[in-house]
């Protein structure tokens, strides 16, 4: 899967309260959440973002609350991928679980600036800054997580497993690295 889009660049510790403020958590409809995505950090983002655009940020992206509304708002806004130096752990799980591609790539974050065009190849793990021409490699996902991604998220992954086995228990051999 190859993604091309404009970069929206932000700093460290972009928290879930600015990704989707709690005043909008009285709904879980993705399209409604998307309208307020990053509103308190960058009020123009939600109106100007185009399908396929990429968010690039610093350390600890998505820190704070467990609200899955945060990656849903980003996905609903049309963002195709989030690249950061690092992610907060609950946000990381949530993004994988709902099928929002996220990549840890400090070198790309260093190089990319707001407004650059970027190309991401999720299969080969390659990030190309189309504005500067520089190319970066991304660490592949652990195999266990790749299985969830390939199923299309945790719900389809679990559905398949529940169907396959009478018992919901996942065999330990399968999940151990």
């Amino acid at each position, binding site marked *: 899967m190859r993604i091309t889009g404009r970069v929206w660049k932000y700093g460290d510790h972009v928290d879930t309260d600015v990704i989707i403020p709690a005043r909008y958590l009285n709904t*879980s409809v993705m399209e409604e959440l998307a309208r307020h995505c990053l509103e308190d950090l960058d009020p123009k983002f939600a109106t100007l973002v185009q399908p396929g655009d990429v968010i690039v940020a610093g350390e600890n992206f998505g820190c704070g609350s467990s609200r899955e509304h945060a990656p849903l708002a980003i996905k609903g806004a049309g963002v195709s991928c989030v690249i950061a130096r690092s992610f907060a752990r609950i946000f990381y799980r949530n993004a994988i679980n709902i099928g929002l591609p996220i990549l840890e790539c400090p070198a790309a974050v260093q190089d990319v600036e707001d407004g650059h065009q970027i190309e991401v190849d999720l299969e080969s793990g390659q990030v190309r800054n189309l504005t500067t021409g520089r190319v970066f490699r991304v660490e592949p996902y652990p195999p266990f997580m790749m299985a969830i991604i390939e199923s299309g998220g945790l719900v389809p992954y679990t*559905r398949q497993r529940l169907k396959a086995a009478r018992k919901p228990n996942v065999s330990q051999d399968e999940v151990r690295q």
Partner: protein
Amino acid sequence: MGHTLTEKILADHAGLEEVHPGQFVDVAVDLVLSNDITAPLAIREFEKLGVERVFDPARVVIVADHFVPNKDIPSAQQSLVIRQFAHAQKLVHYYDVGRMGIEHVLLPEQGLVVPGDVVVGADSHTCTYGALGAFATGMGSTDIAVAMATGRVWMRVPETMRIVYHGQLQPWVGGKDLILHTIGQIGVDGARYKAIEFGGPVVAALPMAGRFTMANMAIEAGAKAGLFPVDQTTLAYLGGRAARPYRVYEPDADATYQQVIEIEVSHLEPQVAFPHLPANTRPVTQVVEVPVDQVVIGSCTNGWLEDLRVAAEVLRGRSVHRDVRCIIIPGSPQVYLDALREGLLEVFIEAGAAVSTPTCGPCLGGHMGVLAAGERAVSTTNRNFRGRMGHPDSEVYLAGPAVAAASAVAGRIIHPSELE
């Protein structure tokens, strides 16, 4: 090679002899939690799984506490979704208005979490239960949907960071100051993906309320969990309360910690975290002339009876400053009742504070104390991100109940001893 408390609990719940940091495991969970904000999304995903029933109606807990009592029509609709689900699934532990408390105060109080448990909750402050020697961690709604259906979750075994506190606490210094100081030292991602195990003589002398406060804010350092060893204080708290038999795990003497941090706290002052990160901490005497518009005392961090006692000690016979709105929120109906019977609520109301039914409300800018542009609050809650408590141009200063109550009286942030 020895193992940490975290590794031993996770190994047992994964049915393995031992586990190592970085290993992916599939673990059985003892309790699955969600609330009025995260449950509707979890229920939507649960319904896509093709499963009729939750794995165990006694182990799936839903607490309506964030926007409850319902603040508006959309919130009422969300509450309706979870109420219908709870009834259809015959959930034993569904808590609605009147019996509802702030989830992380309510569950321990009701004895629903016991030492050695693995608890997952669609709320980041689920890590609070680490105070009881349980491995408890926050997750999103989809993870919780799968856990509700199967009673299992996948996890990466975290590295463990041990933080040891030495010395003697000064007056007016408590668990909140210890954890704020710690986050100030290691940063908001200082424990990212790790489990923290707290220890040393200072926490051994700390009452349960202070331990809950510290474990609660482990997530503010990015941690997956924050655990305390089980001791006489824990066992005394559990007496007559624990809803299930439990097993007490202890870390091995030769356990491998990724990092050990030793903190001397004898000279530690009450701490204040400035906007907009919990790591922006300063000793309160270095806070110069910060006037406040609102003070909130409560939340899953400091909504315990002990916290209200500290606030009452400061507010007794004094008046909340005329330019300050002081809102005090007991963490559960039992805390409310105990505070009432002890005369604490009388102290608060006579001082000019408002006392609310339990709710998370103001902590996340939901209701019951939302800030306007330019307004400033001192709050015993856990987060001071931009816009956390209302308008994006408002400010939240985090502190313990003593500093919060004293600041309510003075109208600016002060050390409680300034009132004496």
